[in-house]
């Protein structure tokens, strides 16, 4: 039992290194898959024990005591990462081209698991950096600019966290979460950490976790990084890695919640610091969804959509009530599952057609029926159609937000889910329906491992949609208190109920009735899609009308006032200024003239003399 945690965390890394060493097509896929499967097995094995007590394991490395712990809460996060990990591994069996990708994909898998399980800041920081570095290397292979933008932002986040850790270490003298939490709790009375310092700590940790979760001002790296990496890896990248940022925010609550509450009090009845997180989440949802709707590239669309969905989770945690946490945690699972599925579908499309722009695709429904069905399930789940997991978690977040009297934030969710519906249908139309371009006629269905991967991610979407009680009951155990009532199929909160099974049954009945009405009518004659507006003439290439490009041009016109400003250009300009400053500094200081160098020495001597006298 003891070294289970070590195997759980480091099995993928070891498998990655082996896969990189034996860079032979067949072997490395097998090793990689085993590496991704081991965590799932161990997590399943430890499910029973985790419900009652936690499994601990400590090792001392370089003078630091690294503590790893598996409790009900981080078992949940690890399980989410494991499901998406297995799907990624299956996806990568068909899309990965070299051992390099297996090494860094599985290294980031180790990083995420380690981040979820570690109970002290050094282990947390170490695995956090490892995860960032591995995912960066996946993107570096394909595009330098995007990967550097991603790495600089996440390194700034990581170093902000490092500073925060150092300040906490200086103040409390401890590095592991338990003692820090205890020290901060006692600190309420002593007041060793002033208001300014706790504000600094809050901002530092918020930037660190905000970058990884892709919160509003720091989301610019997401579209580039998600679209440049190998697509089936991106399912893990956006499905599990963004959860590390969200887990960090949860950690912030656990460690410093009381302290921040004492320092900043409440604002209209909500915790001030939580209110800030809620508003960051709300703005992320709205901005990312608007940008997602206007994208022309399938990968960019899902990247922005992923940033928006993580915004929901931030918002849910920002609400601050226990129901908010339950909603957020449920959405962690549903987002990981349906977003992972979307990325695998994208991987299949790009693998088979080689196209990534919407204008080149179309009419693939007949050619790739299974992938289309999986895509449809993901569409239903993301846009929150009732019998799906996406709806259950979104419903919980609505309940929490409105119950906690955060109306405008709830309004943002409404707008966000409307936009989600819009860009998801746009994806459906541009890729699956409409006239098929002639060069896509011989497209075949995606290879088998990818299909299995999609199936693995599709099942939870339906299963947790029809029976959301399974997840909420586990969350209640994780939090130890009865947050969401009701049995496996019915969610009962103080202000509302949602019987998922009944809705499904009634929907099936409704469909049956409609089907009967349909069958009652005359027989149908099937004619090809091209025999429509051409009144019989064949639809040739140049008259192949379909509006896949600029699908939402009117919306872009309505928003042109806002679209002028882009955070991306803003950050690029800052980077440019910094680099120019560096250049001028170098030119002016190291100007090659020995005379000026000796003047520097003289100046230092002068300072020493003055310093001595002062």
């Amino acid at each position, binding site marked *: 039992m003891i070294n289970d945690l070590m195997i759980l965390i480091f099995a993928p890394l070891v498998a990655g290194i082996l896969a990189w060493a034996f860079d032979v097509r067949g072997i490395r896929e097998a090793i990689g898959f085993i590496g991704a499967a081991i965590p799932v097995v161990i997590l399943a094995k430890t499910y029973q024990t985790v419900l009652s007590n936690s499994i601990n394991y400590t090792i001392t490395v370089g003078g630091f005591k690294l503590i790893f712990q598996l409790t009900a809460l981080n078992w949940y996060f690890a399980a989410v990462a494991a499901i998406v990990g297995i799907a990624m591994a299956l996806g990568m069996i068909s899309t990965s081209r070299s051992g390099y990708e297996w090494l860094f994909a599985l290294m980031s898998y180790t990083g995420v698991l380690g981040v979820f399980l570690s109970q002290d800041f050094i282990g947390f920081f170490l695995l956090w950096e490892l995860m960032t570095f591995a995912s960066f290397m996946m993107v570096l292979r394909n595009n330098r600019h995007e990967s550097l933008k991603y790495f600089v932002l996440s390194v700034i986040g990581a170093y902000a966290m490092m500073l925060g850790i150092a300040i906490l270490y200086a103040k409390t003298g401890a590095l592991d979460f338990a003692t820090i939490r205890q020290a901060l709790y006692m600190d309420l009375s002593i007041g060793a950490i002033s208001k300014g310092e706790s504000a600094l700590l809050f901002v530092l940790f918020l930037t660190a976790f905000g970058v990884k979760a892709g919160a509003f001002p720091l989301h610019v790296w997401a579209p580039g990084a998600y679209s440049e990496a190998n697509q089936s890896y991106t399912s893990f990248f956006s499905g599990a890695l963004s959860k590390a940022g969200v887990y960090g925010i949860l950690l912030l609550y656990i460690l410093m919640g009381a302290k921040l509450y004492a320092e900043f009090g409440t604002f209209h009845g909500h915790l001030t610091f939580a209110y800030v997180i809620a508003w960051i989440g709300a703005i992320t949802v709205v901005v990312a969804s608007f940008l997602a709707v206007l994208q022309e590239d399938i990968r960019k669309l899902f990247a922005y959509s992923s940033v928006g969905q993580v915004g929901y989770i931030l918002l849910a945690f920002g609400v601050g009530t226990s129901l908010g946490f339950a909603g957020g945690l449920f959405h962690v699972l549903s987002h990981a599952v349906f977003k992972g599925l979307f990325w695998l579908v994208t991987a299949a499309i790009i693998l088979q057609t080689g196209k990534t722009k919407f204008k080149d695709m179309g009419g693939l429904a007949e050619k790739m029926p299974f992938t289309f069905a999986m895509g449809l399930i993901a569409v239903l789940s993301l846009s929150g159609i009732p019998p799906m997991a996406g709806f259950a978690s979104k419903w919980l977040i*609505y309940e929490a937000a409105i119950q906690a009297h955060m*109306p*405008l934030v709830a309004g943002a969710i409404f707008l966000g889910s409307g936009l989600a519906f819009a860009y998801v*249908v746009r994806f459906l139309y541009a890729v*699956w329906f409409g006239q098929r371009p002639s060069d896509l006629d011989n497209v075949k269905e995606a290879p088998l491992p990818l299909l299995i991967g999609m199936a693995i991610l599709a099942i939870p979407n339906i299963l947790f949609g029809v029976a959301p009680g399974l997840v909420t009951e586990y969350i209640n155990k994780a939090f130890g208190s009865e947050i969401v009532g009701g049995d496996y199929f019915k969610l009962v909160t103080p202000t509302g*109920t949602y019987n998922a099974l*009944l809705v499904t049954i009634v929907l099936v009945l409704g469909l049956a009735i*409609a089907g009967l009405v349909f069958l009652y009518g005359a027989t*149908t004659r099937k004619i090809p899609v091209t025999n429509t507006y051409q009144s019989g003439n064949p639809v040739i290439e140049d008259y192949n009308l379909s509006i896949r490009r600029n699908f939402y041009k009117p919306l872009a016109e309505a928003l042109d006032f806002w679209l002028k400003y882009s955070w991306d250009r803003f950050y690029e300009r800052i980077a440019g200024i910094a680099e120019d400053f560096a250049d001028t500094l170098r030119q002016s200081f190291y100007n090659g003239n020995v005379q000026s160098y000796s003047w520097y020495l003289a100046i230092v001597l002068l300072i020493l003399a003055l310093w001595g006298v002062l």
Partner: protein
Amino acid sequence: MIGIDWKIVLEVIGMLIYATFMGFIFMGIERKAMARIQRRVGPPLYQPILDTLKLLGKKESVSHGLIYDFGPVFALGATITALLFIPIANFQLFSSNADLIVVAYLLEVPMLGIMLGAMSSGNPYSAVGVQRGLLTMVAMQLPYGLALIAIVQHWGSFKLSEIVALQSVHGWSITVPALLLAFIVFDIVFQAMLGLEPFDIITAPAEISMGPMLEYGGKHAALLFTQHAVQLFAETAFFAVLFLGGASNLIELLIKQIAVLFIAIFVASIYPRFTIDQAAKFFWKWPTIIGIIAVLLTV
């Protein structure tokens, strides 16, 4: 679940027949009232029923594939589901098992069904119809949400049956000033949900001739008409439940539904059609501001 409670089954079947019938009558009223305002006689009330039966009776119906058939079926199925979760007068049906948010989302699900059918028809006009339908839906989502939030915050509960009970005790929602603003917002949004005049961009008859439903004929069109009828009945009932205190019996509900319908018809017959980005700008200006005021008043 296993022990089927026969009483509910009978109620459901009766309600479905009643709702479909009344839905067609509402469509008839709509056409009749529009005609009357334009000083022409207009077709008899039961005209839509005749049209649907004619369409159903056609010998042969053209289809563009599985999804093309699945679209209307899914739309009608979803609308029926939505209907069965709204507390209609004294029949609770299944409303105790779902609340406002679930019903609000179920009312939007048929839109996806229609979109699926329209997109798979491969006709560019229907694609433009899909685009406009989605943009209208996106534009109205914020004010629609704010109105619903205002109600929930005022009555403090999501369950529709509880809201109806509270309204019968404390008087209708529109008597409360804040909820009156919400009523105005919801009414504008209601116009777009029904696809009536100022916001009938989705099926703009002159421009893209019936929009998404362009390729539909025969029994597919009949399905869509029935879906529209049931949707009409469900949305008016939803409106009545939320703002006009529901109803103790069917007659009272019917009166309220027709009253709401007439408001919509009068507005529809006056205003010309918005273009889609004007609609978006409009929705995000006035209704949203009123909605925010309503929400802040009720917090």
